[in-house]
Structures are given as structure tokens and as C-alpha cells.
């Protein structure tokens, strides 16, 4: 089974702190994604990546950046956390080609910014 692991399930940070959310997948998938989930808004795409050192903005990239130095790891970075970034963050991965839209998700990282 494809496994997507988000190392931090729950985080509490203070306004202005730099926050790193880590995601690792073990199935050699090319594509990786970061979504944000908020009640009543569903899932919104923040950033995605097709390959190492490659990134593309999603629908809501403001206030976020990403890093993909290795194929299996995709990090989401909040340079200066703000209270409106309190949310559930979901990482996902998929292969290329016909399976590109079949996303496998991690368990999520719930971030609270005080």
C-alpha cells in the first residue's frame, strides 16, 4: 500500500513563528500536493510538485512556500505563521500518467496558531 506520512499530527505555534510541515511518501510517486481543509470550505490546493525541485502554485499559495529536495519528501513552510493559517493540512501524492489523479492522502496535520 502507498503510504503518505505526515510527521506532525498536531502542532501549536505562536503568531510570527516559522512552521515546517513535513510529508514523506514511500511509493516513488512523482506528484505531491499540499491541501488545506477548513469547515465549510472543503479542500483547497496550496502548492503541488511534479518532480524534485519543481513546484507550482495552487489556488491559495499566499503565506506559504514549499520545498522538494528529494522525490519522497515535500515540505510546506509557513514563513511567519498567522492565526488565519490555523487549519488542517493534508499532504497527498500520485503517480504520473493515467494514475495522476488518484491521490493518496496522509492523515493530516492540525495546526493551531495562537
Amino acid at each position, binding site marked *: 500500500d502507498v503510504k503518505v506520512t505526515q510527521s506532525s499530527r498536531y502542532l501549536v505555534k505562536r503568531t510570527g513563528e516559522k512552521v515546517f510541515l513535513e510529508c514523506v511518501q514511500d511509493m516513488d510517486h512523482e506528484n505531491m500536493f499540499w491541501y488545506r481543509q477548513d469547515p*465549510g470550505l*472543503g*479542500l483547497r490546493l496550496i502548492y*503541488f510538485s511534479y518532480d524534485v525541485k519543481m513546484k507550482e502554485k495552487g489556488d491559495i499559495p499566499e503565506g506559504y512556500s514549499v520545498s522538494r529536495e528529494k522525490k519522497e519528501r515535500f515540505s510546506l513552510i509557513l514563513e511567519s505563521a498567522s492565526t488565519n493559517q490555523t487549519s488542517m493540512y493534508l499532504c497527498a501524492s500520485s503517480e*504520473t500518467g493515467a494514475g*495522476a*489523479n488518484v*491521490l493518496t*492522502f496522509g492523515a*493530516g496535520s492540525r495546526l493551531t496558531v495562537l
Partner: protein
Amino acid sequence: AQSVTQPDIHITVSEGASLELRCNYSYGATPYLFWYVQSPGQGLQLLLKYFSGDTLVQGIKGFEAEFKRSQSSFNLRKPSVHWSDAAEYFCAVGALNYGGSQGNLIFGKGTKLSVKP
């Protein structure tokens, strides 16, 4: 632009009753369609997907969905609901080359299912 609408925010059914969750999409061509389920505090798990072919697709946990092009719908059904089906359900649409991206999905806002004993 692509979009997905799930008209029902919250549905309650009795255990053993049948279930239908509605999903409508907006997309210019034949879409790739998905249903995911999310248990409380967990990530999303794929229930089923439609790419092409037979418009009635079977998924895990006894779920099925039917693609109706004329209605732009992809409703999820289960003949008999179990208490363990209580969760949030998300419909999604994707395309290989949406906005130049590969593999992106557009999600509906979700339908929360409660199951009465």
C-alpha cells in the same frame, strides 16, 4: 472553470437504510470523477473512481456511484448503511491537464453523514 457541488452539507440516515449522496460537477469534457471518505481526525481515503467505460462503478465498503453525463452528476449510493459509515464524504473532479497541472483535483465542500442506531 471546473467546479464540484455537493448540495447536502449534512445527512442523517438510520442504520440499515439506503443512502444516496449527491454530486454535480462542471467541466467541459469527460471528467475524471472520484469519491473520497474522511473519518474524524483522519486523511481522505479513496472510495471509487470513474475514468471511462461503464457508468456504474463499484468501490470499497459496498459503495457504488453512477456517472450521468446528461445531468452532470456522480451520485454515491449504498443499499444498507452501517454505523461505521458515519464520516464526511467528498466528491472530486480531476483532469490530466487542468490549468497546466497534472493530477490536480477539485473537491466539493463535503457531505457529513450521521447514522442513527
